[in-house]
């Protein structure tokens, strides 16, 4: 009886040891300190149907917002794609708003410790696998970065970079 108990204990200990050895301490640089949302809009003065049958109309608030700025003023706006990715404490991350296409990519990295109100990012915009723009930008709660980008099908792409709102628990 005693011998069997010793064997059981040894077996349990043998099962625990590899588990402890196999675990590695988490990299604090991978801590998620926020989320960044990248959205691509199609803006045109022509027929918005050129964006494709699945492109969706943007909300009235956003439409008004874009139309208020002369450089971004177009007759029609359509939503082409969106991607939200984690903002790591130390590492860069990529957003791919037109998945599965890699035509528009945004690389970002925290430049300062983010808050819910503001985050300063090192940001790169890649178009057609070429780095087109590199900047550092301060994103505030309701103040996104809007990039008037390349032409496409008679219109232009507008790439919006903003902070993602905090997710509410389900």
């Amino acid at each position, binding site marked *: 009886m005693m011998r069997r108990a010793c064997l059981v204990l040894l077996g349990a200990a043998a099962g625990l040891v590899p588990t402890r050895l196999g675990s590695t301490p988490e990299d604090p640089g991978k801590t*998620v300190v926020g989320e960044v949302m990248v959205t691509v809009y199609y803006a045109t003065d022509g027929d918005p149907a050129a964006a*494709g049958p699945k492109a969706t109309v943007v909300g009235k608030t956003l439409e008004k917002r874009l139309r208020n700025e002369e450089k971004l003023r177009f007759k029609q706006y359509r*939503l082409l794609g969106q991607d939200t990715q984690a903002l790591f404490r130390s590492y860069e991350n990529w957003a791919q708003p037109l998945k599965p296409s890699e035509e528009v990519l945004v690389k970002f990295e925290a430049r300062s410790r983010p808050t819910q109100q503001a*985050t*300063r990012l090192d940001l790169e915009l890649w178009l057609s696998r070429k780095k087109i723009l590199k900047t550092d930008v301060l*994103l505030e709660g309701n103040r996104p970065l809007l990039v008037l980008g390349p032409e496409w099908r008679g219109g232009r792409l507008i790439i919006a970079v903003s902070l993602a709102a905090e997710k509410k628990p389900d």
Partner: protein
Amino acid sequence: MNTIPDETTLARWLDDDLQGPERRAFEISIQGDADLFARRQAARDWRAAVATVIPAVVEPPYPEFFNHRIERAIREQVPKPTLRKAAVWRGWWMPATALAGMVLAFWGGTMTGGRVTPVRAVANSGPATVPVVAGTEGPTVYTPEHGVDAEWFSSPDAAATVIVLEGVDAIPDTLDFSESVGFRANGKSTAELEAPKTDEAEVTQ
């Protein structure tokens, strides 16, 4: 007997340097030589004449100057009191001054480094408190691709930072993003950029 006087004794006799028995012995030896006595008298007259012109004791010129030089040389050999001050400085004034300098530099850094405001992180999985340095200066814009220009400005009308790219190659019209537009909002922006709700969305034909 040698009656010729030696030159040294003769010179001392002419200078009236011989005294007592030495003088008497010398005068006996010269046996009253009148010529020698005349030479001694001439020497006496010459010394008397010189004494009337040159004083017997002559003070050195500028005694104050020489005394000052001597006093200064003596002072320079005496250990300087400044060495004592240096020892005190190295003793504990120097570390105390260095510590005060470090405290002052730290205080200056905290005053000029911007205000740090701890607030909650953006994401629910972020750290509990994450400070950020407040600042509203504009971005630095760099376009590495040849022929591409970028202009940034802060747009109060759009409530956004706007960058306008010029000279970018157009995306070929043959590229189709129909697959990507099939998403439903996978997140919500703080900047009111969220996609419209499904029932409000108008699908183009």
